[in-house]
């Protein structure tokens, strides 16, 4: 078609794609071989931790947070690369092979950067805000089952708990917006909170649909009960619109285009974190990506069968699904324009909330019959 004529891809770039595919295949092959590894050698260590619940939990938390930090670094690189390719650019290329180490360099730069607090800022709030955003973002991951064995805290109210914790993140954004004493920040913070609270409602309703269908609030059990068929396949009429609504809400929850109003850079400069620099900014950034991982993982659990899948080990499937959903989010983000605040609100209250209510009623009916 016409596109081929416009800017044909050069041979070297085709080769790069090929290399990428081969690497991905190798990684997948290595992952699928993991069940064959001598895991039983680790049993004494497991037993040691199992006997000491406090230590066990601590170790889990440390593992989870460091895993998230590393994953965020990787995701940030991936997003920049992806956006670059999508926009006919190369993305980061300088640090490391094809810029893989770019985010590490950025992290070091941010660490070494002068830590600026505006003179007229509300200092305690300004300092507190990044942690109020970061801690809930990490806590949500606590109940997320990465595989049958790998779950921080298999809570029987997991779905509700995750939602409630993620709402608390709004406070941090409000604190950031208020504390910086910057008008753009205040506007951004207000927008963020209004958006978060509004989109929470359809999101909770859709989660309730799944909970009603599966008759449990535990995320592990929700996944386990999708063993045969993923939700989206088992109940297509309910779950496809459900997944769409959930996806829109997820985009709004993590402030991504077309719902990135809180940090709309063309209007509000950078929204609630306009005044942040250095490590505080990095914490916001990591929290944002942790939220991304959480919402994508949550969607994978609710609709796409979590860790279920053939051949590959469960953790690989879960990661794969999460990554694909994150890719989808990025793709949408780099394609669509941004909505206006009132349009976004009317979209939520006039379309998503009624639609999710109807969906919930239908789900209840389908369960009763």
């Amino acid at each position: 078609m016409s596109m081929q004529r416009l800017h044909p891809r050069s041979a070297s770039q085709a080769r790069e794609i090929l290399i990428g595919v081969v690497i991905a295949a190798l990684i997948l092959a290595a992952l699928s071989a993991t069940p064959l590894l001598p895991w039983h050698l680790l049993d004494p260590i497991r037993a040691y931790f199992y006997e000491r619940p406090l230590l066990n939990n601590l170790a889990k938390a440390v593992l989870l947070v460091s895993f998230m930090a590393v994953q965020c670094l990787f995701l940030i690189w991936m997003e920049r690369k992806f956006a670059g390719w999508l926009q006919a650019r190369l993305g980061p290329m300088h640090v490391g092979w094809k810029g893989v180490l770019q985010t590490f360099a950025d992290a070091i730069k941010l660490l070494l950067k002068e830590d600026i607090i505006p003179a007229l800022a509300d200092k305690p709030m300004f300092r507190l805000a990044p942690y109020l955003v970061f801690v809930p973002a990490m806590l949500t991951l606590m109940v997320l089952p990465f595989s049958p064995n790998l779950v921080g805290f298999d809570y029987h109210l997991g779905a509700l708990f995750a939602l409630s914790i993620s709402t608390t993140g709004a406070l941090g954004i409000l604190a950031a917006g208020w504390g910086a004493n910057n008008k753009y920040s205040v506007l951004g913070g207000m927008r963020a909170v209004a958006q978060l609270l509004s989109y929470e409602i359809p999101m909770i309703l859709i989660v309730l649909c799944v909970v009603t269908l599966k008759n449990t609030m535990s995320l592990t059990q929700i996944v386990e009960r999708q063993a045969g068929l993923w939700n989206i396949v088992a109940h297509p009429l309910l779950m496809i619109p459900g997944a769409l609504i959930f996806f829109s809400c997820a985009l709004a929850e993590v402030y991504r285009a077309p719902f990135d109003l809180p940090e709309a850079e063309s209007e509000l400069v950078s929204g609630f974190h306009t005044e942040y620099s250095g490590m505080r900014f990095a914490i916001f950034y990591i929290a944002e990506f942790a939220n991304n991982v959480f919402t994508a993982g949550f969607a994978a659990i609710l609709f796409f069968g979590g860790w279920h899948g053939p051949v590959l080990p469960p953790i690989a499937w879960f990661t794969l699904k999460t990554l694909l959903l994150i890719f989808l989010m990025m793709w949408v983000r780099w394609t669509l324009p941004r909505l206006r605040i009132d349009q976004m609100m009317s979209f939520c209250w006039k379309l998503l909330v009624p639609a999710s209510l109807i969906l919930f009623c239908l789900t209840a009916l389908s369960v009763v019959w």
Partner: protein
Amino acid sequence: MNTLPVQIAFYSLAALTLISAAYVVRARSIIHAGFWLLPCFVGVAGLFATLQAHFFFVAQLLIYAGAILVLILFALMLTRDAMSLHVPLKSHLGIWAGLISAGLGISASLVLARQSWSVTTAHPAGPARQAEALGEALIGLYAVPFEVASLLLLSALIGAVVLAKVERAPAPEPPPLADTLPEPEETRKEPVGVE
């Protein structure tokens, strides 16, 4: 059940709740006071958790720490006085407030001390059953009070809408020459939201 950790948890959570409640009262800035509510609510949620009331724990987090607190702060930020850090801390009503809350506190303590509570050492119902039991109670035995409460909330909602729906002040005086153009409200079509 291991009681010592539970007791430690209880006392620290209680201390957290009370201290942050004190800060809510004492904070100079009304916004800071609002933010001090967060540890207060979280502490209460934690107390629910120590009591094995899982649903209340999550609901407290979701509704109070997540939603209500944010709304309170939202409302505070939209009011004029919150902008200044110099909200007067002393109030001539302070004495009355102190007296009333002291009276309430004393009477509540008396009631608590006098009343003979039926203490049970039996383990509460399985956590998974709790939510279910609660739900059944709400739409079964307590259906009528539940509905009445929701009716109350609905009327409050409508009242709020009625109160808040103030006629917007007319747009400021349009600049010269603008009389040739129609009013912006009229020319603009229906807001083209994604509906």
